[in-house]
């Protein structure tokens, strides 16, 4: 089985789904079901985490999905840590998608504060999945201190532009010792397939599913994109060449 393994836990889906921006909780559930995902991330700022009757939380079947709370909205390490502890105190598993995004415009992650928060949370026993810019050195530093994954962005959140950071993501994948999850910016199944073909271990998608009139259909399409990309990666893609290769080799006259 080609399972995704994070912190020793096995998942047979390599597509994670975000729960923001949907037109209704029913649309969100549709997307989750269509995607075949097993990990869903929820912004702690959007829910009453200690209230099981919270209208959004009540729609997530925790038997079926791993609820991955995220700290989006946190401006610095202290705030992110406080939110993570809040989620754990409310009975969530100690998994946390660490987002420290002091810039509310492009929601780009702060590398310094993300690193500080990751250090604290890892020491406290959290399984930390940090959202980062596609910075290979930061990815290595985070792996070193024990984060469970790294989650580099393909493009700024919500832009649907695809893997614009491909050169850096390729380096992160090449050097990774933990799963690499491409997060943010994936707007089409082909983007997800592309990330998976590159060798990403998983992808996370939200906006592309939330803003379509047919979340379930789009989620199913992403599922196929992720699976196709993964299978292509495992099968081994042909090497990409800049020009055609001569069928009559230029050095063919060298007989021995």
């Amino acid at each position, binding site marked *: 089985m080609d399972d995704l393994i994070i912190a020793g836990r096995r998942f047979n889906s390599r597509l994670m789904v975000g729960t923001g921006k949907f037109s209704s909780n029913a649309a969100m559930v549709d997307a989750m079901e269509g995607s075949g995902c097993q990990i869903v991330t929820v912004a702690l700022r959007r829910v009453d985490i200690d209230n099981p009757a919270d209208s959004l939380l009540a729609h997530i079947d925790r038997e079926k999905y791993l609820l991955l709370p995220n700290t989006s*909205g946190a401006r610095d390490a202290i705030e992110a840590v406080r939110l993570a502890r809040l989620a754990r105190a409310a009975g969530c598993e100690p998994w946390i998608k660490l987002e420290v995004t002091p810039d*509310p*415009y492009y929601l780009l992650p702060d590398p310094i504060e993300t690193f500080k928060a990751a250090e604290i949370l890892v020491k406290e026993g959290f399984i930390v999945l940090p959202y980062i810019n596609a910075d290979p050195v930061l990815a290595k530093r985070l792996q070193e201190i024990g984060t469970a994954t790294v989650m580099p962005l393909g493009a700024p959140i919500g832009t649907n532009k695809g893997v614009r950071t491909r050169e850096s993501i390729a380096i992160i994948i090449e050097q990774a010792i933990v799963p690499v999850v491409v997060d943010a910016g994936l707007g089409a199944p082909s983007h997800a397939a592309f990330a998976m073909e590159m060798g990403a271990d998983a992808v996370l998608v939200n906006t592309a599913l939330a803003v379509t009139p047919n979340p379930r259909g789009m989620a199913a399409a992403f599922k196929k994109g992720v699976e196709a990309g993964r299978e292509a990666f495992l099968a081994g893609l042909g090497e990409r060449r800049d020009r055609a290769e001569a069928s009559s080799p230029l050095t063919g006259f060298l007989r021995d």
Partner: protein
Amino acid sequence: MSFLDEIGKYDPQQVLAAIEAKTASDVERALNAERLGAEELQALLSPAAAAFLEPMAARAHRVTLQRFGNNILLYAPLYVSNLCTNGCRYCGFAAGNKMPRRTLTLDEVEREAQVLHDQGFRHILLVTGEAQGKVTNDYLADCARRIRHLFSSISIEVWPMQTDGYRQMVEAGVDGLTIYQETYDRELYAEMHPYGNKRDYDFRLLTPERGGAAGIRRIGLGFLLGLGQFRVEAFFLGLHALHMSRHYWRTLVSVSFPRIRPADGGFAPLHPVSDRNFVQLICALRLLLPDAGLVLSTRESAVLRDNLLPLGITQMSAGSCTAPGGYAEKDDSGRQFAIDDDRTPEEVARVIRAHGYEAVWKDWDSAFLDKTVHA
């Protein structure tokens, strides 16, 4: 450089002339630009853009959907005092108006807050007039602390404070500040504010920057629609929002569109803004500021509010009462102005859902600022 320096570079008359001179091709160029600047904003606010309202609305819809999804955040104002020493000519709370005046006790504030909490609200806006000496920073901080356990977000729309005052508010759990310039036109501003602390145009103009310096997370800007020429006012509002987002990049800017409503004192708008102009200005600002929260209050009619939903609005008040104590006591005799959309919060939420949006009650967590929890 402060926004005072920036706005000082412009002559409002020349701005108006430049806006009026924009052509259809300027508008088309602005509509196709990936990111808009001052020139493009002028084009979208111009009379020439009136012919492009539909494509502007379509793009505003797309941009908002991409950034905010199908969500509308609901909030409620909580008026804690209507005491006021200012003489704003358009406002029901103006010192010269005879009306019942009161400042709620902390118990009364909590009672009002409980009503709103029970209706489902988790985002609250504390509102007052300006009566320093009687309604103080300490009082407002006490109000915030008193109701903090009921809400995930507390904003204020009160008198302008010094930076230290805003720091005190953040400590008390306030994460949002709304402060309208009313008009960016200095002469008109002086005319509209004949007496009181509010006469100080510069101090008010720099208020958002003091809030940003104090670390307030969300700052709402706006002008009072109906005072000045809306095209010029909206242009300066757009520049103000851009200025804030560059200089206080950790603070998210939102923009409101308060149109003058009938208030005690009988003020008539100097430059009425038609529904068509209103839509144009909302779309123009959405295209300039793709990430800004756009706020619509119950000043507008139910029909208009429902129709504006897809055009870029991201936050709405509902079931509002503009008199201190009005929620628990059902008495609005001390109100600031008459609202138009008088549907209950649940009705508004239902209509939002019927339009294909999720009515969001909570989009913030007090734990971000509360240093006492999980420290």
